[in-house]
């Protein structure tokens, strides 16, 4: 076990080295693409003082990341709440589920960014629009997964709870949600992924402070090193958030 553990770490590090080396090589051929060194320098510059504040249009990368994460949290929590409530209702009612499912699949296929102009036009506020884009990105995967998870809970569990005559509300919290828990968390994880993917272009298009704004502001200056640095930060934050869900999924897992 220990040796296999080590071997994946070694392989992973080796891949990183190969990636950086080939990046370096490509940047030497493509003159316009900054190599790893200039990006590292930029990263050092931004990370050495991540919370500076030079006015409304120039804030440290840490502050901008917090803006994005804050926006993500609000939109995601609201979206997930709606998705889980609707999902449980649909999951418990097969007819309704079958009737609504095609629409969910259609809505799910729409890029959250595609909603943006419509939302901006109707709510007339760019911050609220960014939140709604995250909301839209968060709802569908969780809704689909919750409905699926709830409708596929073992009949035995439901039957037992019926025999014991548990109150319907407590049935939801003690049988249905735990039963569908792992599927719901899997849905939340997909939702979080798509919300994080949506937030960067939403901020860039709306001019709302955040990592997306940073990308756009640096693109303004054709500063590709900063753009690459921002890409790395966006990826890293995404991984950290995903790790949270990983931990959550492990806690909610159960064996039939």
């Amino acid at each position, binding site marked *: 076990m220990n040796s296999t553990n080590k071997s994946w770490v070694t392989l992973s590090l080796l891949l990183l080295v190969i990636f950086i080396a080939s990046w370096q090589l490509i940047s030497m051929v493509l003159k316009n693409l900054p190599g790893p060194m200039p990006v590292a320098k930029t990263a050092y510059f931004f990370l050495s003082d991540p919370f500076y504040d030079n006015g*409304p*249009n120039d804030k440290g990368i840490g502050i901008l990341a917090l803006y994005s994460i804050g926006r993500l949290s609000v939109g995601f929590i609201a979206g997930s709440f709606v998705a889980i409530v609707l999902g449980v209702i649909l999951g418990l009612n097969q007819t309704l589920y079958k009737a609504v499912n095609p629409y969910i699949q259609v809505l799910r296929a729409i890029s959250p960014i595609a909603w943006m102009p419509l939302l901006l036009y109707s709510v007339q506020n760019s911050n609220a629009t960014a939140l709604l884009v995250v909301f839209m990105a968060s709802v569908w995967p969780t809704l689909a997964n919750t409905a699926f998870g709830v409708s596929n809970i073992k009949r035995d569990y439901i039957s037992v709870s019926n025999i014991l005559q548990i109150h319907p509300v407590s049935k939801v919290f003690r049988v249905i949600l735990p039963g569908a828990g792992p599927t719901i968390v899997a849905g939340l994880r997909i939702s979080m992924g798509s919300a994080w993917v949506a937030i960067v272009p939403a901020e860039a298009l709306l001019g709302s402070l955040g990592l997306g704004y940073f990308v756009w502001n*640096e*693109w*303004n200056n054709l500063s590709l090193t900063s753009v690459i640095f921002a890409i790395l930060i966006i990826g890293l934050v995404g991984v950290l958030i995903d790790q949270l869900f990983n931990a959550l999924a492990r806690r909610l897992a159960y064996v039939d």
Partner: protein
Amino acid sequence: MCINCKTDNDLSKCSSGLRDAYDPKVSLEHCSSMNTGHDHVAALETQESVIDRVVENAVIKAIFGGNDVSRRNFMKLVGASTAMSVLSSIFPMDAAKAWAKEAPGSLEKKDLKIGFIPITCATPIIMADPMKMYEKYGLSGTKVVKAAGWAMIRDWAVSKQVDCAHMLSPMPLAITMGVGSTAMPFYMPAIENINGQAITLHVKHKAVKEPKDMRGFTFSVPFDYSMHNMLLRYYLAEGGVDPDKEVKIRVLPPPEMVANLKAENVDGYLSPDPFNQRAVYEGVGFIFKLTRDLWPGHPCCAFAASKDFATEMPNSFKAVLMAIVDATFYSHDPANRKEISKAIAPRNYLNQPEEVVEQVLTGSFPDGLGNMRNEPDRIDFNPFPWNSMAVWILTQMKRWGYVKGDVDYKKIAEEVFLASECGEAMKKLGYPVPTTTYEKHVIMGKTFDPDKPEEYLKSFTISRS
């Protein structure tokens, strides 16, 4: 010296309102006592001290029931300072004074939000922040907020997420008419820059000399309702090229133009600086023609606010206009251009290399063809919103089919381009104000008479109207 009676015979000004109510020797009632109490009438220089005095007198008069004799006896008895402290303990004098100052003439809102696009056209709007022009007119806490493109700034302005905005001078006209936007009356009390744009072409087009060499090109402009679009179309059409049929004109946010030129997605653009100069700096483009050579002194970007803002907050509107006009004239002075370049180049504002910004603002620049050019009026700043300029813009909007049907040129021009408000601010700052708001303009050698817009429109062979 008494400013009230020495220099002014007006009896109403001679009234007792401004004399020291704590002074037992002066009367608050009789103007005739002015002669005896003369030395006791302090020359009240500032508006604030006048208000203080008015409030004190009103309160004291009320306390003594308008009986001036008993007031004077009381003051003689206890002395002014005791009277003052007794009074202030029973009546919130300071609060009353503060409240009186809040009344007419004071700013309804000090922390304005002003949207801008990071281009050198916005120089006065931007530099007013680091160089404290907004604070100078009492607008402390005013913020300038960067927007990614013209559609975004239009939406910010229309949905009132910003109080005022940097706009392209055709935009307030278009928004007011509801063209390409929800209709909402807008005011444009000041132009920002004149000149300052250029046609930039990809370096592979160095052989191009005139419009007919550009057939089949793809151009980009920052917005449909922009001087850039109007001037590019005008230039091409004057050279016999139909801008709708023989070339493609795409709207791109200015910052993306250089990258698109680099990728050869576009052959050239008529865009705001610093993106013309930035293309030279990046080695991908050259400056083919300065717009100054098409229409010397043409308007470009502007300062705009919704009519709602101007009517709901008239004093803040006036103050911000003063700041903008002041900043615009400050930017006009070539001696200040270097200092301004340094102030607006950082990430919080333009986020551009200072060198590029300086080349634009000083007009001493490489053109990408190997020449160093020196054109001090490459960009200039003049706030006066000529109504005739608005009429010209409207003729072109009609020419290219952006507006259809009859246009009441002068009515719209005067409604949106607030020449008199700008003139008032200019006068206060001591700058000469034009006596008329219409003048003839010469664009590429052709005279435009604002009194005959329809005739002018009919004179073009290439036209959609």
